[in-house]
């Protein structure tokens, strides 16, 4: 019953092993899906925008819709000067969305024919979250100098309250990378475990045979419903990551208007 093990789908297997200076940098199924996500994103967008028609076709409309969607997101959360970070936000959104969507395929033309969700590994989401936080802090200090720390002193608060408010602001700032990474990771992990658990029930009930096999329709319906939900979550988590990135970038751009 190894196939019904809900955790097996998160295992990483090396495809081509190599290490540099003692670090294991093997090309794994995770790397395969990362490279595939990049290749598919670039490939699809390149094909969609290759004609650059004045009146867009279907594929070009989708590409432009995606562009406008992310551009509006950046503009509404971080203002017009936030648009210098538009490529970053778009890259984050596209990469996470594509990785999540590729993870929705239970079987896939990959080594072992098994799907894999890049974003279901904490190290990946932590790396992405840290990238955002490093850019926020780095750009905030570069642009505003020490004024950047005014995000810890919200305006319009009576002076004595800063004793309470400032530590809270600092804690909330420090917990941002944690919540940003855990949210994406936990959503993908839990969703995929849930899918696999219910799919396992179908197999087990089917193996039991008789009347129990007929009950197997219930977890099947559940898996169908959960799959729809997981597609939504796959999009939603990419969107949430992009939105929060924009909001954090807004702090770096305009620390005064906290």
């Amino acid at each position: 019953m190894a196939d019904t093990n809900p955790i097996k789908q998160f295992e990483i297997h090396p495809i081509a092993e190599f290490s540099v200076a003692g670090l294991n940098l093997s090309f794994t199924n995770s790397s395969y899906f990362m490279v595939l996500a990049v290749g598919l994103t670039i490939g699809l967008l390149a094909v969609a925008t290759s004609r650059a028609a004045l009146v867009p076709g279907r594929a070009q409309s989708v590409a432009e819709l995606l562009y406008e969607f992310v551009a509006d997101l950046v503009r509404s959360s971080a203002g017009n000067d936030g648009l210098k970070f538009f490529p970053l936000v778009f890259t984050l959104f596209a990469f996470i969305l594509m990785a999540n969507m590729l993870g929705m395929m239970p079987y896939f033309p990959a080594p072992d024919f098994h799907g894999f969700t890049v974003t279901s590994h904490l190290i990946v989401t932590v790396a992405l979250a840290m990238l955002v936080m490093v850019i926020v802090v780095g750009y905030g200090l570069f642009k505003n100098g020490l004024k950047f720390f005014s995000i810890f002193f919200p305006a319009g608060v009576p002076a004595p309250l800063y004793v309470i408010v400032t530590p809270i602001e600092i804690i909330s700032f420090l917990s941002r990378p944690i919540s940003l990474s855990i949210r994406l990771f936990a959503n993908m992990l839990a969703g995929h475990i849930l899918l696999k658990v219910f799919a396992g029930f179908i197999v087990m009930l089917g193996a039991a045979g008789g009347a129990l096999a007929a009950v197997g329709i219930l977890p099947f319906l559940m898996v169908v419903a959960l799959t729809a939900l997981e597609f939504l979550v796959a999009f939603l988590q990419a969107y949430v990551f992009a939105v929060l990135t924009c909001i954090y970038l807004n702090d770096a751009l305009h620390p005064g208007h906290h």
Partner: protein
Amino acid sequence: MAQPSPTGYEDAASGVFPPFDPTYFASQLFWLAISFAVLYILLSRWILPRIGSTIEERKDRIADDLDAAASLKAQADEAVKTYERSLADARAKARAVAGDARAVAEREAAEETARIEAELAGKQDEAEARISEARTKALGEVCNVAADVAASVAEHLAGVKVKKADAEKAVDEVRS
């Protein structure tokens, strides 16, 4: 972060919950950095400017078309205004011409009427003069006839020859 392997997970690569298995952390970070960097560079240098310029071009084109439409509309409005102005001018001119024509016609009609009335009055006077002349002449002839008759009556009854001048004098005495 690594958890002790619960039973059933023995087939996992190193016996820990895979997302917390540090074996491939370095590999994941390494390949994530490469793929993310490649994606960022390709998107920001190639794909996004292409989509952006297409959208920008379309926006410019639409704005140009709107401008052209607005200027055409302004021209059309101007043309309508000019047309209405010339129409009003023409109407005023027509009214003036009609007024002049009426005045001229009235004047001519009055002159004609006066002329005809004068002519008719002249004819009437002439006719009256002729009538009175005819009457005078007729009266004279009546006197002659009466004198002749009186002379012949006197000759037949009294056998007296009366001269014509005497007879006429007698008639005139009787008449007056």
